[in-house]
């Protein structure tokens, strides 16, 4: 096994902090429930609306763009761990990869796909 002890310490700390925050806020906060308090609300809108409405397709577009840039970020990993050893060859290959996706980025900017209307 490669050394994952740092990752495990990190995961354990993250879990411990999350659990601690939940326990502390649960213990310290006064519990005084009433019907009005237990009802779902959103920004003062008291009547809960159904979530099964029609959502703008914009959301799907944002998700798709996120997916593409996510995969782009993923391809940086194998290069980044050996960036020095791969030197100019790697930089050139990565630059080409980045440039092609840059065209897509410019297209998305030009079409206004990254602005929320």
């Amino acid at each position: 096994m490669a050394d994952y002890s740092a990752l495990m310490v990190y995961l354990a700390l993250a879990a411990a902090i999350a659990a601690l925050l939940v326990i502390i806020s649960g213990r310290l906060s006064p519990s005084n429930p009433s019907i009005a308090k237990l009802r779902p609300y959103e920004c003062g809108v008291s009547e809960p609306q159904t979530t099964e409405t029609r959502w703008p397709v914009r959301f799907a577009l944002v998700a798709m763009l996120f997916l593409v840039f996510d995969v782009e970020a993923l391809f940086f990993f194998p290069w980044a761990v050996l960036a020095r050893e791969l030197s100019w060859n790697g930089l050139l290959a990565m630059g080409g990869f980045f440039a092609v996706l840059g065209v897509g980025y410019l297209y998305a900017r030009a079409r206004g796909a990254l602005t929320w209307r």
Partner: protein
Amino acid sequence: MAATDVFVAIVFYLVAATMILAGASMVLARNMVRSALWLVLTLAGVAVMYVLLSADFLAVAQILVYVGAIMILMLFAIMLTPNQVDLPSAAPQAQRISAALTALAVFGISVFVMLSHRWNVRAVPLDAPSSERLGVLLMSTYVLPFEIASLLLTAGMIGAIVIAREE
């Protein structure tokens, strides 16, 4: 058996049990959003399996792409499909039967392959990080497919914008 082997075995069985539970909960959940969230747990378990197999790049890809991006896409797909979030009795009888038959067939084929194939089992777990070797190969031998992948991603991005544009 060394201490690390015991540790790996414990992690494997814990995560495998979690994955089976999460998978079953995903199938049994009546609410599609809950199903999707159970699937997140199952896919995260797959990432741990990749780590145990020394496939660190695949583990990162699993978390970054599947747990992150694909699941967001799935949740948005559920949101964008009206009246499909709760499934009290959505599937008709015929569909249930064919779904059960398909699941049984896939199960049967999987078990058959698992039992009939001669697996090469290593005595010791593979201990070699894969990211570095992948990086070297991607930047040298497979540099062309690597660049084509960026073209494919750009095409996907432009396609999504063209299809989802609002005018």
